[in-house]
């Protein structure tokens, strides 16, 4: 019996007896998640926000961009306009509901984009080690030398101010944080005995990485992702606030806020509500991420 | 026994409360300690011996709590003492040293600062006097160049040195009672002997009483006058040290003795006690040792024996020595090789 046969046979046996590592870790994940109250609360809050962002726009009476009405501009909250109106007389409630989706979308998209690259880079770095590892990690160090939104600012200065460019800038800023964590977990997993055994049985690198290492490092990736969504949204809305991201008349929450500050003296509500929206999103992801970290990584707890 | 009794523990009960469940870690422990003598509390980890020690100074961590019994130290019941009173006793009249010298000293303060602190709290000594006394104490516990050591941080000292510092600190106020919780377990064998020697020596010099918590019968033989063997939160045998080694009665005591190497017995006769200590929240109904006992009968599994006097010097908690024993009447618990 050659190595390949043995390999095939062993995977076939595994399929019969136990779930695939992916399914197993997903089940395990769900079980742990259920036990942690704050992860649950955060999770429900996120789901609620996503539902509002998707369904909400169908129920709003006004159009977020085109329903201008200068007769009612800069009015405070009323039965007609729950969150008041802006300087074009547009309904702020409508704009915030529509903006929720844009802001969440930016957060998810930037995290997924940057996360995928970061995870790949981290796995390659951790799995192959040696010179590849040190070059990649030095590169990551360089990216990490720019604190907070500074890197995004620097990138925006090249790419120009727009929503897409903010997403790109923020996802580049995600790469090193994911890469570092994934590299560490990969290093820890790589040397486990059964990985050695797989290699001895002739499994290819790709197979080992995706079938065996990846499920094992999934937990830290998920934790990092949920916390990074908050960072991404904070940075993206901050850039929009500075006028470097979503441009008017986009109802992106940071952009509404940016617009609202021009009317602080007359109509503070324009800035109030989008900011509250951002805060609730960040709160949900922070609570969720904290809870996940506690649930998935008992070492970090206490 | 006509000596002055310094510590008299009666029916001590300490429990841990977790999620509505009471876990009885110490379940009715009693013993007496005469002045200037040493009692060994022996047992495997989980037997409740360390909890007993911590209970005496009321150092239990939440959710541990003393739920009953008396701890009479001289004329005072420590279970009823106020926080203030117990603080005045800690480190002053009763001192304690712990198992892990590596982690028991505060890493961010020098040896001197930590010794002076005790002296300041209990005797009001200032920095200068404290340092002088500290150097004396370090000298007393055999630390070379104490003047240099007193300015060092714990990480600059070896494990043995740190345990000496702990002893020096414990002795700072000439306590009447020293509780040593596995003081040598974490140390190398050669260092172990030195530390025990220091404790013995200082005990004689200051007429101090000692409670020696250990799992090691070798340590008991070297230091103790009396022994209380604990199992599952209860004392299963209580005797003076000679009797314990000469005529151990409880099968568990015998097991403990058989599991230490002796130079006069063939090595292949060393036998470990099979099985594990029962977890305190899942105690057997009858005798706690029954599941691991080679002589256990139905009676042992059903009913908990009481701690009875079987000879002038010995109390045992075992059905074998009672009139109700339903097993082999000729059973010999201590093997023939235990004659010394």
């Amino acid at each position, binding site marked *: 019996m050659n190595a390949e046969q043995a390999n095939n046979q062993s995977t076939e046996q595994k399929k019969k007896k136990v779930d695939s590592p992916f399914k197993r870790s997903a089940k395990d994940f769900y079980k742990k998640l259920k036990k942690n109250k704050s992860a649950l609360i955060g999770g429900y809050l996120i789901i609620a926000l996503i539902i509002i962002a998707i369904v909400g726009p169908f129920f709003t009476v006004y159009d977020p961009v085109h329903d201008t009405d200068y007769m009612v501009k800069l009015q405070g909250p009323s039965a007609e306009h729950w969150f008041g109106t802006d300087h074009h007389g547009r309904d702020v409630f409508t704009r915030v509901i529509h903006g929720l989706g844009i802001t969440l979308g930016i957060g998810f998209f930037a995290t997924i984009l940057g996360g995928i690259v970061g995870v790949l880079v981290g796995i390659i770095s951790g799995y192959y080690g040696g010179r590849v590892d040190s070059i990649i990690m030095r590169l990551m*160090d360089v990216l990490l*030398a720019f604190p907070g939104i*500074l890197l995004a600012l620097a990138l925006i200065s090249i790419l120009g101010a727009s929503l897409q460019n903010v997403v790109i800038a923020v996802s580049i800023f995600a790469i090193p944080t994911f890469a570092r964590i994934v590299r560490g977990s990969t290093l820890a997993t790589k040397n486990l005995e059964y990985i050695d055994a797989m290699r001895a049985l002739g499994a290819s690198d790709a197979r080992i990485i995706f079938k065996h290492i990846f499920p094992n490092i999934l937990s830290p990736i998920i934790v990092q992702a949920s916390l990074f969504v908050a960072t991404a949204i904070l940075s993206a809305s901050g850039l929009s606030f500075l006028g470097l991201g979503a441009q008017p008349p986009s109802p992106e929450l940071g952009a509404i806020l940016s617009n609202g500050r021009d009317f602080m003296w007359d109509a503070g509500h324009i800035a109030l509500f989008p900011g509250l929206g951002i805060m609730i999103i960040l709160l949900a992801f922070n609570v969720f991420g904290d809870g996940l970290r506690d649930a998935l990584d008992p070492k970090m707890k206490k | 026994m006509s000596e002055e009794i310094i510590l008299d523990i009666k029916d001590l009960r300490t429990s841990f409360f977790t999620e509505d469940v009471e876990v009885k870690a110490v379940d009715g422990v009693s013993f007496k300690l005469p002045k200037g003598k040493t009692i060994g509390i022996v047992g495997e980890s989980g037997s409740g011996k360390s909890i007993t020690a911590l209970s005496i100074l009321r150092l239990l961590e939440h959710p541990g709590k003393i739920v009953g019994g008396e701890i009479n130290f001289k004329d005072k019941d420590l279970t009823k003492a106020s926080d203030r009173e117990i603080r005045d006793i800690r480190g002053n009249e009763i001192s304690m040293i712990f198992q892990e010298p590596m982690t028991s000293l505060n890493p961010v303060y020098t040896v001197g600062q930590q010794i002076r602190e005790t002296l300041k709290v209990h005797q009001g000594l200032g920095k200068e006097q404290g340092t002088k006394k500290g150097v004396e104490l370090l000298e007393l516990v055999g630390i070379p160049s104490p003047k240099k050591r007193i300015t060092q941080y714990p990480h600059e000292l070896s494990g043995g040195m740190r345990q000496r510092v702990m002893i020096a600190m414990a002795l700072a106020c000439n306590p009447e009672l020293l509780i040593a919780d596995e003081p040598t377990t974490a140390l190398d064998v050669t260092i172990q002997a030195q530390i025990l020697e220091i404790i013995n020596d200082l005990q004689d010099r200051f007429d101090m009483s000692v409670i020696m918590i250990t799992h090691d019968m070798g340590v008991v033989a070297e230091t103790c006058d009396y022994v209380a063997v604990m199992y599952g939160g209860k004392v299963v045998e209580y005797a003076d040290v000679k009797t314990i080694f000469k005529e151990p009665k409880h099968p568990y005591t015998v097991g403990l003795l058989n599991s230490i190497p002796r130079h006069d017995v063939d090595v292949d006769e060393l036998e470990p006690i099979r099985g594990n200590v029962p977890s305190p929240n899942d105690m057997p109904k009858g005798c706690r040792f029954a599941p691991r006992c080679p002589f256990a009968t139905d009676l042992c599994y059903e009913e908990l024996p009481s701690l009875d006097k079987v000879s002038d010097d010995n109390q045992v908690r075992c059905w074998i020595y009672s009139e109700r024993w339903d097993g082999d009447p000729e059973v010999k618990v201590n093997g023939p090789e235990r004659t010394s």
Partner: protein
Amino acid sequence: MFQFIVRRLLQLIPVLLGVTILVFSLMHLSPGNPAHIIAGESAPKDTVEQIEERLGLNDPILVQYGNFLKDVVTLDFGNSWRTSLPVSEELWPKFWVTFELSVYSTIFSIFLGLIAGIISAVRQYSVADVSIMLVALFGLSMPNFWLGLMLMQWFSINLGWLPATGWGSAEQIVLPVITLGTMGAAVIARMTRSSMLDVVTQDYIRTARAKGLSERLVIYKHALKNALIPVVTVVGLQFGSLLAGAVLTESVFAINGMGKLIVDRILARDFPTVQAAVLVIAVIFVLVNLLVDISYKFLNKRIDLD
């Protein structure tokens, strides 16, 4: 220790080189000819060529980078493309404003965060603890630009107690510092709490109690000093992100600092100024991290248990 510092300093060199390469390429990756940005789109050809010559834009890229590096080391960042003034002349006064803002905010967050964290830890699960941790969670989730606007709305516009804009006077400092320092305070409070809770289970705390010390001495002398060690790291990292977060705060309160400068000049495509400002912040961030690393190592030497 000395070896450790030297090694860390050496490790810094590739990172700083990488940073300069990245910042250098900002200008070269951006679309558009710099000469056109300076002289305007409709400038005559010979003017453009003259400017290109002056900026050395026709030199090989490596030569250009070499010159850039030389300029950086001598802190000469060239002239602004907008104002034609030397960049360093414009930069330093604004740098000090941002630096002040960051330092004050750091002090504010340490002060508030430590007190809140200690109270929380000492009274674990009490009403005070739960409220503090809840407030900290909100503090962590509040975008500082929004917090700034709300503070301004309330204290400047509604109550008229504090000025809404500017930097310098004591009154002007209050709102920006709270705005910028709140998130750090929340982070420090959470860190202090968890670190304290971790420390109080250590063996040496039991030793301190066994010595007969009062609970106050046990907590404030024995536990706190150890608990602060991991907090040092957090404080250091916070200072770095404050420098960057200052961009938003400065924008809210119209403070003429480096953050506002960066944003204004990004919009004006004044690359030398943006390059210089970004570079300065990155270098400070890297140096602060180094300092934190060294101090952590130093403090940790004592608690290196095995």
